[in-house]
């Protein structure tokens, strides 16, 4: 549905870049970059996704603008699912820190309500 015939040379270039990026991501994984390790891995994966989508899937050449909207909607909804669930998991700790110690026996227990 592109209406444009892309040259085989372009495809070969994209294919070459994908191979290089694959080897790159596997190589980088063996370097200690700290927090940047997962960041690099995901960044390279996103670049590869973009290459496949734009060239192999003709996203770059299509006349049908709606295609972008559909793709964006899928990615956006995934982001929402992840973001909200993730926010729950990382903020689930109790809103009050545990007390130094509980009122742990009868005497302290009784003293509270005797004071009332």
């Amino acid at each position, binding site marked *: *549905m592109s209406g444009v015939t*892309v040259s085989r040379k372009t495809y070969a270039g994209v294919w070459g870049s994908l191979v290089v990026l694959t080897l790159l991501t596997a190589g980088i994984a063996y370097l200690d970059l700290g927090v940047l390790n997962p960041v690099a891995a995901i960044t390279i994966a996103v670049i*590869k996704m973009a290459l496949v989508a734009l060239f192999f899937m003709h996203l770059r050449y299509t006349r*049908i603008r709606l295609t972008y909207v559909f*793709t964006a909607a899928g990615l956006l909804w995934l982001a929402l699912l992840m973001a909200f669930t993730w926010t729950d*998991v990382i903020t689930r700790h109790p809103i009050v820190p545990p007390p130094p110690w509980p009122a742990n026996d009868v005497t302290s227990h009784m003293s509270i309500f005797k004071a009332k």
Partner: protein
Amino acid sequence: MTESIAGLEHQFETLEQQHEAGWLGMWAFLATEIMFFGGMFTGYVIYRWAYFGAFAAGSKDLEIWAGTLNTLVLICSSFTMVLAVHAAETGERRGQIGFLLATMFLGTVFLGVKGYEWTTLFRDHHVPGIGFHFSGPYQNTAQIFFSFYFALTGMHALHMVVGVGLLTFLLVKAWRAEFTPAHHAAVDIIGLYWHFVDIVWIFLFPLLYLVDRHR
């Protein structure tokens, strides 16, 4: 009047409208596929956060050469797929048949390597369930990693199998020389699906095989 155009289905006015509908339909379907895998990716993210050590240990237990090889195989299959689409656009029947066959072959190689990996993991008792065993400090948490590994790769492999089936369908049509430069929407659309399955693997590779490799 409308019946006179070859390959035009009764509900459409023009071939262009028909192609546009098919193209958009596949993209919308791919959006649902994003969400289908998305549920599991979400789980992967939150469990990796909670069980980072176990994920790293489990990941190092996978064979990196197999993962890398499979990534390269799938990338090559995407390349041959797009060449098949190209052959359809230019109307070369032999090109279509050749590249479709190559794509199917690479897809099968991928599944073969995957099967080999699964067999190895099964032998090592790394399949979640009653018989699960993992030695080392993460003996009782590594199972979560392998649960996600099998759920994600299993679902992906299922999509690959469906993809190979769809390619067979295309191959038959190509054999019968049904694709013309004006009318080859099926190759285009099934090609989209194949590339999508490739993209899923492009993410699975670093997420499953490359966790904390450097340590």
